[in-house]
Structures are given as C-alpha cells and as structure tokens.
C-alpha cells in the first residue's frame, strides 16, 4: 500500500521547458527512497513538488490517501534538509531547532523537551548555545537534520544533503542519517547524484532522466539488472553493443550471434557487460564472441584493464595481472550469457 | 517559488509613488499656459526654449559643472592614495583614520557651508569660489574613500607582489597592476561623487556670492519666486541627462555601481 504517491506530474518552467513529464512514483511507509540522476534530470524539481515549493501544472500528489497538491508548504508538515542546510544565522542551534515548534505554538516546556531529545539523538547536546557560523560542516548538517525531524514530519525530504561535506564525513553522515531514519521510521525522499551514496542508504532507488523515472527498484536490482541503456551507463556500465532479435537469439549488425539468460521485449536492444565479466574465448566458443585489437593497457594493481577495439566499438576488459596481452595483438572476447545484460535503448 | 500577490500589489504601489510625480512634471513641461496645469490643455515646447534664455541658469550651470568636476578630481587625487594606504598598510588606528576620512558625512551640509563661510570666507578672506570648492570636496571625498576602498578590499594584493617579483618598482606596480584593476571602482566613485556634488544644495547655501552660485540653488530660488513650467522643462532636461548617464553606467559598470 503506497503511503506517498505522485501521479502523472507535469512541471514546466516559464511555460516552456518541460522539467517533469507525467512522472509517477509510489513510496511505502517507512521507506527511504532516493531520486538519482544527473543534474537537470528533474530530481530536485520532484522533491520541490513534494515539498510544495512548486505547484505542478497537472497531476496529483497525495500522502496517506490525502490529496496535498494544492496545500501550501507551511501546512504540509514535512521536514526538509536543504543542500545549503539553510540554517538561520541569527538563531542559535537551540532556536533553529525550536523554530518549527514555536510556529506550532507548543508551550515552552514541551518545546524544550522535544528540542533536547532530538539534539541528543543527533549528537548535538553540547552545541545548543552555538550559532551556525561557529560550527563545522558536519555539525551544521546535523542541526539541519534535527530541525527537520523535531517537528515529527510526515515525510523527510533531503536535497543532496551530503554534497558539501568532505569524503570521509560524507560516509559517516550517510550512515547516521540511515540510523536515525530507521530509528524514527520516517518515510524519506533523498535526492542525490552520487550512486554509491544512493545505493548505500536507500531501500529503493528511482533513477531519473529528462523528467521521467527510468527505473524504480531496489539498489541491488538496479546494480545487477539495469533496465535501460541510460540507467546502465549512469551506474557505470561502459561496454555496449547493439543487438537485433532473430528467433531465439540476438545478432549484431555484423552477424555475430549472442544468447542471453534473460529475455527482453522489443526487437532492437543493447547488450551490456561489466569489464571484469568479460572472458577470453577458447576454441570451442562459437557464439557470444567478439574479436578485436588490444589498444591501451592500464595497470590497476590486481588486474590490467584493456581497451579492445571491436566491430561494435571500444570495449573495456579487465584481466588478472598474470595474463598479459600486448598492445596491437588480436584477441577474441567471450561475453558469457549469464553476465550479458539486455537493456532498452 | 509561488509569487505573493499582496507583495506584488504593494511594490507596484510603491514604484508608482516613486515614478508618478516625475511623470507629472514631464507632462506639465509641455503645457502651453503660463501656469502649471495637469493634465495639460495644449502642447508646446516653448518652456524648453525659455530655459536657454535665462542667463543665470546658463552661468550657474557652468559653475556647478566646474565645481563638481574640480571637487571630484581633487577628491580622487587625494582619496585614492589614502584608500590604498588604508587597505594595504599595517598602520595603527586604520579604523580611526578611515572614520576621519568619512567624517564629512556626519556633519550636516548646511553646517559645513556655514562654518566654511564664516572661517574661510569671512575670517581668512578666501574667495567664495574656493570656499564652495572646499565644501563640495567634503561631499565628494567620502564617496571616493568608500567606493574605491571597497574595490581595493576585493583586490588580490598577491598580484601586486607578483609584479614586484617580476622586477616592477612599487610605484610602477601601483599604476600598472593595482590601478587597472580598480578602475570600475574609481569610475563608480567618480560618477557618484560628481552627481552628488552637482545636485548638492545645503553646502552651497552659504557659499555664494557675486557670480558664484550653483545651478540647483538658482533653480530653487527661481521656484520660490516664479511658478511656471520653465522649472518643469529644466527638470525634464536634467532627467534626460540622468537617464542617459544611467544607461551608460549600466552598459559599462552595471547599474548596481550606483547603489553604493
């Protein structure tokens, strides 16, 4: 049963450029869902529609069965963590966190209790008298999170919250966010362009491209079974070959025959495979084979990576360091049917 | 972000308040009758012609240009080195010296005119023109210190050090490296100082004498004794010059240069 639903959302900027095209998304209660995609794909816009900063041209946003499309931001009761944190510089940590509670006209005792409690959870108890500009990036991030959580929001929205932190802190904070999110059981939307961050934190991932969701699935499935060429490329696949369905097999334009384990609708698809899954073909392999010339060789420690030029274009192949192929030599690549993934072009 | 209608209506009201009176002046300047009426009954440009026939306008206009130009140039000559020294040196009491340079802003203009008239003109027998120039220097100097100072604050002084290391002497480095990089600040300071000197009245009230009288003071005098569309016509001409100048500033420095 979906808790949060976006149905057929259209958003245009300045009446011209369409940023979201009939976007659909369903999120279950307590889930952490990431919106992943390159800049300009519409992920932040989607988040802003949910937050209420943007009113979609058409479509419905509902939460827990209630249509909230036209409800103004301040009546939605969602917690938002901004990319810039957007802490109020004129207020102390305590007052920043208490802000939302004061707007709800809670009495002083209640405010104090709730603020102290959330500061404790976020590990900020000793900083309550500090001002934002006196704190480090990671601490500010926590304040922003505490401020968003203390109002006991129906939804937590995080807009690239980790992008301003250095690499090490980012890993700590994403575990922290996950821990707090699970502890409070709060349904969360997380916007990011970093796939590693996204995979590590999310229950489900929506990969977005040009205003639509290309694939909505668990991180594992997206990593192992990308459905479209865009998703495959975005999560790091680099080897692609065009295939045409002919009976039970697929053929390249040059006529090489490929078989795969999973079937795909459509006659024209693309095959993709990770560099470490490509093998060197033996004598007996007569299909799923591509021959090519070895180009640039790069030493990566445990392995060599080769650029192999084939009739289907450049392929990256990773082989153990013990196996060495010279530049310029001809090799036959074997793409095992269990590893070759078909995606929509 | 969703636009707020109430705020938009409010802003439209405020901008209307700012602009309508000037539009009314512009329309009345083209009236035919010798009394100012709005709306005008018939169209004429005779008041524009009349502006150029009033001798005191012509003379005082030139005086104002001369005073504003001289005061601004002197303020730049004195103010740029001072701003540079304040930005660059480790002098003790920099803050104090800077506030001394900005202190003319806290002395009311009429008081500056009054004490200069008493001290320079009456006691020391300095010509009125020099007194007027001194007064307008006080109007222009703070603009130079503030605007050039803020553009020096943004200047990366390591480029000056780079010039030294490349064999450029300190004085040459100032002219070859520092000055070219703060020209927009200097131009903005020039415009602001010049305009504010040209428009200033209080400083000039006391500092006038035979043949020495500024244009705005003359204009004010004229209004107190005459009420005809000549002043409207003068206003339109001055506003036209202002618009022209703002367009030039916008194309070269950006309009925000005048918001300092």
């Amino acid at each position, binding site marked *: 049963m979906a808790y949060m639903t976006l149905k057929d959302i259209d958003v245009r900027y300045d009446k011209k450029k369409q940023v979201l095209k009939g976007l659909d998304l369903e999120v279950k209660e307590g889930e952490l869902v990431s919106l992943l995609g390159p800049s300009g794909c519409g992920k932040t816009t989607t988040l802003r529609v949910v*937050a*209420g900063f943007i009113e979609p041209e058409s479509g419905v946003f509902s939460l827990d069965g209630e249509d909230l499309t036209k409800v103004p*931001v*301040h009546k939605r009761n969602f*917690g*938002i963590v*901004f990319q*810039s944190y957007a802490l*109020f510089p*004129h207020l*102390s940590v305590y*007052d920043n966190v208490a*802000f939302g509670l004061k707007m709800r006209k809670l009495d002083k005792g209640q405010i104090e209790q709730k603020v102290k409690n959330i500061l404790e959870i976020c590990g900020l108890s000793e900083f309550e008298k500090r001002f934002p500009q006196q704190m480090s990036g990671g601490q500010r991030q926590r304040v922003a999170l505490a401020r*968003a959580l203390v109002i006991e929001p129906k939804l937590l929205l995080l807009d690239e919250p980790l992008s301003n932190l250095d690499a090490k802190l980012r890993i700590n904070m994403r575990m922290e966010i996950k821990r707090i999110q699970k502890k409070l059981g709060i349904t969360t939307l997380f916007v990011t362009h970093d796939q590693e961050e996204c995979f590590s934190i999310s229950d489900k991932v929506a990969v977005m491209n040009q205003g639509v969701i290309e694939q909505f699935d668990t991180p594992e499935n997206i990593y192992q079974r990308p459905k479209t060429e865009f998703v495959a490329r975005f999560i790091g696949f680099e080897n692609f070959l065009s295939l045409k369905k002919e009976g039970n097999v697929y053929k390249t334009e040059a006529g090489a025959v490929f078989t795969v384990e999973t079937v795909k609708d459509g006659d024209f698809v693309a095959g993709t495979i990770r560099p470490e899954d490509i093998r060197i073909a033996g004598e007996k392999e007569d299909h799923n084979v591509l021959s090519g010339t070895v180009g640039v060789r790069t030493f990566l420690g445990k392995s060599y990576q080769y650029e192999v030029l084939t009739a289907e274009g450049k392929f990256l192949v990773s082989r153990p360091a013990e196996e060495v192929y010279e530049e310029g030599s001809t090799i036959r690549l074997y793409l095992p049917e269990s590893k070759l993934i078909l995606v929509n072009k | *972000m969703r636009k707020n209608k109430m*705020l*938009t209506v*409010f*802003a439209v009201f*405020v*901008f209307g308040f*700012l*602009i309508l*009176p*000037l539009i009314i*002046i512009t329309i*009345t300047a083209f009236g035919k009758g010798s009394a100012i009426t*709005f709306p005008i009954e018939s169209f004429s440009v005779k008041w524009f012609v009349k502006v150029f026939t009033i001798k005191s306008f012509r003379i005082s206009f030139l005086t104002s240009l001369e005073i504003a130009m001289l005061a601004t140039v002197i303020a730049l000559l004195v103010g740029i*080195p*001072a701003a540079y*020294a*304040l930005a*660059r*040196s480790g*002098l003790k009491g920099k803050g104090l010296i800077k506030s001394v*340079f900005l202190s003319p802003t*806290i*002395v*009311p203009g*009429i*008081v500056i005119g009054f*004490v*200069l008239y008493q001290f320079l003109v009456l*006691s020391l027998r300095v010509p009125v023109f020099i007194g007027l120039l*001194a007064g307008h*220097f006080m109007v222009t*100097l703070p603009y130079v210190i503030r605007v050039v100072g803020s553009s020096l604050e943004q200047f990366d002084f390591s480029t000056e050090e780079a010039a030294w290391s490349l064999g450029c002497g300190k004085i040459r480095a100032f002219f070859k490296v520092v000055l070219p990089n703060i020209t927009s600040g200097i131009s903005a300071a020039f415009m602001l100082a010049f*305009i504010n000197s040209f*428009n200033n009245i209080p400083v000039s*009230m006391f500092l006038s004498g035979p043949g020495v009288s500024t244009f705005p003071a003359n*204009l*004010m005098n004229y209004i107190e004794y005459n009420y005809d569309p000549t*002043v409207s016509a003068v*206003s339109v001409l*001055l*506003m036209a010059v202002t618009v022209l100048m*703002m367009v030039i500033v*916008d194309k070269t420095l950006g309009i925000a240069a*005048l*918001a300092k």
Partner: protein
Amino acid sequence: MKKRSAFVMIIPGLVILAVCLFLPLLRVLIPSLHTGEYPLSAYVTFFQDEYYRKIFVRTVKVACLTTGFCMVLGVPTAYFISRCSKKWRGILLSVSIFPMMTNSVIRSFAWINILGSNGLINRLLITAGIVEKPLKLLYTDFAIIIGSVYLFLPLMIVTVAGVMENIGDDMMEAALSLGADRIRAFMKVIFPMSLPGIIVGGILVFTGTLTAYTTPQLLGGNKNMVLSTFIYQRAMTVGDWDGAAVISLIMIVVTLAVIKGFNSLAARLDKRGGDHA
C-alpha cells in the same frame, strides 16, 4: 608597505580635512559654548524658547516619521526586488536609483505640483465635489514629511535590497517548511537577517531628513522651519551668527546621538535573536 609611504599617501587628505572642516568647525562652534553668562547658556536659552523648541521638535518629528514610513514602505519593496529574476531586479533597481540621481529641487518641485492649492490633489477633490475650497496641503509638516519620504525612500530600498539579495531563497523555504506562513517567515527570518541593512538605511534616512534643506524649504515654507532652514534664516536674514552656531552644534550632536542610538539598537536586537525563548 613602509609606514612613511603610507603617511605620505594619507597626509594630504588629512590636511585638507583639518583646514577645511575640523578647524572651521572648532573655530566657529566652540565659542558658542561660552557665550552668555555661564557655559552652555546659549543652549539653555535655545531650549527655553518655545519657538526654537518647536522647530527642534518638528525637525526630530519629521525625521522620525520619515524614517518610519521609509521602513514600512521600503523593506517589503526591497524584499520584492531581491526575489525578482535578474532582469527585473536590474529594472526595478534602476527605477529606484533614478530618483536618487535626480536633483532634490526637482523632486520637491514635483510635490508642489501635486500638493499646491492649484495642484493635482486639490483639483481632483474639487472636481469630484468633495471639497469646495482647496485644502492647505502645501507648506505644512505633512508636505515636508511626504516630500522627505519621497526623497529618501529610494535610499532605503536600495540599501536594504543590497542586503536582502544575499539571503538565499532557501531561508524562506526552510521557514515555510517548518510551518511558518509567509508573513511570519518574513518577520522571524528575513527581517532579523536583514536588520543590519535596515539599520544602515534607517541611519541614512534619519540623518538625511534631519539635515535636509531643500525639501523643508520648498514644501514647508517660512512658517514651518526645521533646524537646517532655521540656521540659514538666523544667519542670513537676522544676522544672528551665534544663534546659527548653536543650532549647528545641536544638529551635529543629534546626528551623532542618532547614529549611536541606531547602532546600539542593532546590537541589542542581535543579542535578543540569540536568546532562548
């Protein structure tokens, strides 16, 4: 930089300031402290005189009201400008700067045309049959105030807009997301954040109005004098140079006090922002 060369650069300015400002100020204003039977007696006399006191009070009242109106009108307008697209921000900023670049005589003259007995407002009122005889709008305190607001509102708008431009949209959005409606978000977040700019604007408008000459002269006339027009009248018309010196020093002291007052107000409000409610 060597100290000596820094001195060489600063000295010319200091010398001109000393000779053409500080020395004249001291020479003209200090004696006013000692005129009369006892020290400061000229000042005591000034405030004992009902007519003088009235001028003083009028000046301060006009400055206070003008500052108040400029804040009420200017702060929301500045916020509006700061939230516009870049193109519109440039246009609206130009529209605000244009009056600032226009001579104050012209700007006051505009209001003579509007407020005069034959002016726009009276003609409208008479044509509409609301009044029979023209109302006396010109040469009143009201005229001085509206003229001063007109004179200084652009300065307030431009000053405050400059500060508000640096406040990101995310501040407003954060406040909204925490349950504040637009007006409360503005009052609780945007307003305190722009307070430094509003204080600077307040100082500029207050001291500007306090010391303005043209507008009170043209719109107030001889019956509604303020300190700056009064100085001129004392010195040039009556020949009371000592009196003019007294008024001059009073104006300087009030200006300094106002600047100090505004700044300490800013400091107080800032601290209050940090208190636990």
